[in-house]
C-alpha cells in the first residue's frame, strides 16, 4: 500500500486504531473504547472489593417482628474496618439489641385457662403492676410472704410469658495482618452483656494462599466463656415451678474450630468448603422455660417443671458455599449439614441471585430452606406417673420442624464507594407436635410453638481515606 498524501498515514492509523478498540470492546464486557464517544453507563458490578488503605464504615439496623404479638426486636449495628496499606486490617463492631414481647414459656396448651406463678424479677417488691400487654400481676403469696408474678393463659391458647424484655450490648474487634507473602494471621475478641447474661470470647486464625492465590486454606479457633444469672436465680432442673428465689449463677464454656478451603474454580466460580466443630460444656438449660406434667388420661396440666438439658454438647457441621458470576448476575448457592450430640440433625440450603437493574441499582431475591430433627430429649410435655427422664425440654427450637425464608435485597450505589442496602425477609417455621395418641384433650391441640417472623434490615456502607 502506498500512501503519499500528506497526513494519509496518520489518518489511516486513526481509523485502524478506532476499529481496534471497537473490536476489542465487543468482547471485553466493561471496556469502553476510548476513541468512541460511547454513552455506556458505568456498571453496578464494577464495585471492587479491595479497600486497601481505606477506612470502611458499615452501619445497619434490624427490625424483627414475630407474628401473633410475640417477640419484637430492634438491633442497630455500627462497624468499622481500618485497612492499612500493607494489607493489615483492624475491625471493630458495636451492636445493641432490644427485645420485647411474649415468648412461649414451654407449657403445653390446654382446653382450660392456665395460671403460672413465677418469682418476681425483683425480689421483695410489693408493688402490684398490671400492664396491658404483659397481663402479669405481682402478688404477695399468703403464708410464705413471697412476692410472685402471676399470669394466666386463656383456654386453648399457647402459654406465653408476655413480660419478656431484654437489652443487649455487644462489642467485638479483630485485627489481621499478613506475615508472609501468602500467609495471614488474625486475632479477635468479643464481649456481650444482657441483663441476665454475659459472654466473652477470644479467637485466632490463620489463612494460607496456595496455587497463585487460587486456593486459600484457613483455620481458626474460638473460646467463649458465658455466665448466666437469671433474674430470680437458676432453678434446679425438673423441679416444680414456684415463686421461690432460685440458685446461683451458672457458667458455660464453648470451644470451637473452623477449617476451610476456598477455591477459585475458574474465572466465574468461587467455592468454599468449611468444617466446624464446637464443644460446649456447662449450663445450657433455659432457666425460664418449663414443661407441663399432664394427666395420663385427660391430658390436663397437673404441675409445671423447669426444663433440663445436658451440660455437654458437641456440634459439627459441613458448609459448602458457591458464588458464580455469569453475565451480569451473581448466583450464590450454599448448603450445610449439621449434627450434634443432642441428636439434632439438620440440613440448610440457600440460594440468591444478584441481578443488576441499572448502573446504580441491583436486586437480589433469596430463599432458604432449613429442616431439623428433634433433640433426643425433646418432649412437648411430660406424663404424670411415668419415670422422669434425665433431660427434657419442650423448646420448639429443639423439636422437629422445617423453616423457609424468602427475602429480597436491594442495593444502591451511592458515590464512589458507598452502598445503601435494604433486605426484607419473611421467615416461617412449619411443624406439628400434636398427635392423635396424645392423652385426652391434648390430642386436638397443636403443641408446636414455631415462629413466623418478618424482618427488615437497612444499612449503609462507605469507604474513605
Amino acid at each position, binding site marked *: *500500500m*502506498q*500512501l503519499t498524501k*500528506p*497526513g*494519509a*498515514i*496518520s489518518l*489511516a*492509523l*486513526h481509523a*485502524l*486504531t478506532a*476499529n*481496534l*478498540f471497537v*473490536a*476489542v*470492546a*465487543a*468482547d*471485553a464486557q*466493561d*471496556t*469502553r*473504547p*476510548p*476513541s468512541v464517544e460511547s454513552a*455506556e453507563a*458505568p*456498571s453496578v458490578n*464494577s*464495585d*471492587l472489593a*479491595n*479497600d*486497601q*488503605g*481505606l477506612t470502611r464504615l458499615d452501619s445497619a439496623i434490624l427490625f424483627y417482628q414475630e407474628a401473633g404479638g410475640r417477640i419484637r426486636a430492634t438491633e442497630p449495628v455500627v462497624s468499622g474496618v481500618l485497612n492499612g*496499606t500493607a494489607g493489615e486490617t483492624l475491625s471493630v463492631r458495636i451492636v445493641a439489641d432490644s427485645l420485647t414481647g411474649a415468648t412461649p414459656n414451654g407449657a403445653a396448651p390446654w382446653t382450660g385457662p392456665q395460671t403460672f406463678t413465677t418469682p418476681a424479677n425483683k425480689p421483695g417488691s410489693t408493688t402490684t403492676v398490671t400492664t396491658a400487654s404483659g397481663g402479669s400481676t405481682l402478688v404477695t403469696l399468703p403464708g410464705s410472704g413471697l412476692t410472685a408474678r402471676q399470669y394466666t393463659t386463656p383456654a386453648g391458647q399457647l402459654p406465653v410469658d408476655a413480660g419478656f424484655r431484654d437489652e443487649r450490648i455487644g462489642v467485638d474487634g479483630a485485627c489481621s495482618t499478613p506475615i508472609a507473602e501468602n500467609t495471614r494471621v488474625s486475632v479477635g475478641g468479643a464481649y456481650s452483656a444482657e441483663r441476665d447474661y454475659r459472654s466473652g470470647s477470644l479467637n485466632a486464625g490463620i489463612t494460607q494462599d496456595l496455587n497463585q492465590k487460587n486456593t486459600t486454606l484457613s483455620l481458626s479457633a474460638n473460646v467463649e466463656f458465658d455466665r448466666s444469672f437469671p433474674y430470680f436465680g437458676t432453678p434446679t432442673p425438673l423441679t416444680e415451678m414456684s415463686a421461690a428465689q432460685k440458685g446461683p449463677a451458672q457458667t458455660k464454656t464453648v470451644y470451637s474450630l473452623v477449617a476451610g478451603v476456598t477455591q477459585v474454580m475458574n474465572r466465574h466460580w468461587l467455592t468454599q468448603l468449611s468444617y466446624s466443630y464446637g464443644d460446649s460444656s456447662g449450663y445450657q438449660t433455659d432457666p425460664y422455660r418449663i414443661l407441663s406434667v399432664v394427666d395420663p388420661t385427660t391430658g390436663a396440666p397437673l404441675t409445671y417443671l423447669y426444663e433440663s438439658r445436658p451440660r455437654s454438647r458437641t456440634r459439627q457441621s459441613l458448609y459448602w458455599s458457591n458464588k458464580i458470576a455469569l453475565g451480569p448476575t451473581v448466583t450464590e448457592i450454599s448448603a450445610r449439614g449439621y449434627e450434634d450430640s443432642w441428636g439434632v440433625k439438620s440440613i440448610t440450603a440457600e440460594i440468591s441471585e444478584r441481578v443488576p437493574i441499572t448502573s446504580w441499582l441491583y436486586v437480589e431475591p433469596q430463599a432458604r430452606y432449613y429442616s431439623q430433627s428433634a433433640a433426643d430429649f425433646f418432649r412437648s410435655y411430660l406424663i404424670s406417673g411415668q419415670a422422669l427422664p434425665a433431660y427434657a425440654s419442650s423448646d420448639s427450637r429443639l423439636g422437629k420442624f422445617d423453616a423457609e425464608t424468602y427475602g429480597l435485597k436491594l442495593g444502591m450505589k451511592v*458515590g*464512589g*464507594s458507598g452502598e445503601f442496602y435494604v433486605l426484607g425477609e419473611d421467615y416461617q417455621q412449619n411443624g406439628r407436635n400434636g398427635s392423635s395418641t396424645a392423652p385426652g384433650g391434648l390430642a386436638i391441640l397443636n403443641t408446636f410453638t414455631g415462629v413466623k417472623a418478618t424482618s427488615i434490615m437497612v444499612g449503609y456502607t*462507605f*469507604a*474513605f*481515606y
Partner: protein
Amino acid sequence: MGELSRVEDGFLYAFRAMASPCEARIETDDPGLAWRLGETAEAEAARIEAKYSRYRDDSLISRINRADGPVDVDSETAALLDYAAQCHAISDGRFDITSGVLRRAWRFDGSDRVPTPEEVAALAPLVGWDKVEWRAPRIRLARGMEIDFGGLGKEYAVDSAVAKMMALADVPLLVNFGGDLRVSGPRGGGGAWRVSIESVDVAGTAEGLIEIRTGGLTTSGDARRFLLKDGVRYSHILDPRTGWPVENPPRSVTVAAATCLEAGLLSTLAMLHGSEAEAFLASEGLQAWWMR
C-alpha cells in the same frame, strides 16, 4: 500493589509494571474512588503484561513463539494482530512485529560490536510479517521466527486502562506507563495536563512542559541505546526491511495523537524514517517535538 498519595486536585496512584514506573493521576476528592481507579489501571497493566510480554514464558506471545505449529488466539489478540498487519501495510513494512529476531545480531549495549553483514543476512528469512501465516484466529510462524508487541503493547495497555477507568467513573484522569500516556480529557475546569518529557529539547515548549487536553503522548528515542564504531553511531532503530539501523534518526521524537497507541506508532514510524523523520512529521501534520 500501588501507592496512593494526595496531589494537587486529586490523587496519584503509582506502581510498577512492564519494567517501568507507572502512574495514574486522578482528579477526585474521593480517595476510595482513586484507589479503585488506580487499581484498575494496575490490573490492566498486569493483565496485558502477563498476556503479551515476551519476557514471560507463560505469556501468549511466548506460547506463539515456542509453538512449532499453528496457535489459535482469542479475539483480543486477533484484533491486535490484525492491527499490527495493517500497520505493517500502511508503513510500507517499516513497522513489523517480527523484527525482534534482529536483536540476536544487534546488541545495543553501548559497545562497538557491530554485526557482520553475513550475520544480519542470515536472519533475513526470519523477519517480515509477510512470512507469517495469519488468518484469524490462527497464527503460524515459520521455525525460528518470533513476534512481539514491543511497539504497541504498552501503548495499548494505556488506552485500555483509561477506557476501563472511564467506565468506572467520569473523572478527569491521566495514565502514564513508563512515559507512554493518555488523558481522559481536559482537567476539571477545562485545564490542560502539564507533562514534562525527559530527553526532549525543552525549546519550543512552555517551561519545559507540554500541555495536553485530550488524547495520548509518547516518546521514541535512542538516548542510551546505540553502538558506536569508527565514529559511526548505529541507532537501535532497526529497519526490518534491511536488518540495519535506520540512518541518522533524531535522538527522540514525541508525538501527540488521539490515542496513546496512535502516538506510539507515529513516533516509532518517525524514528524509522531516519533523517527524513522531521519531513515525515511535517507531511503528516502531527503535533510533535523532537531532538537531534
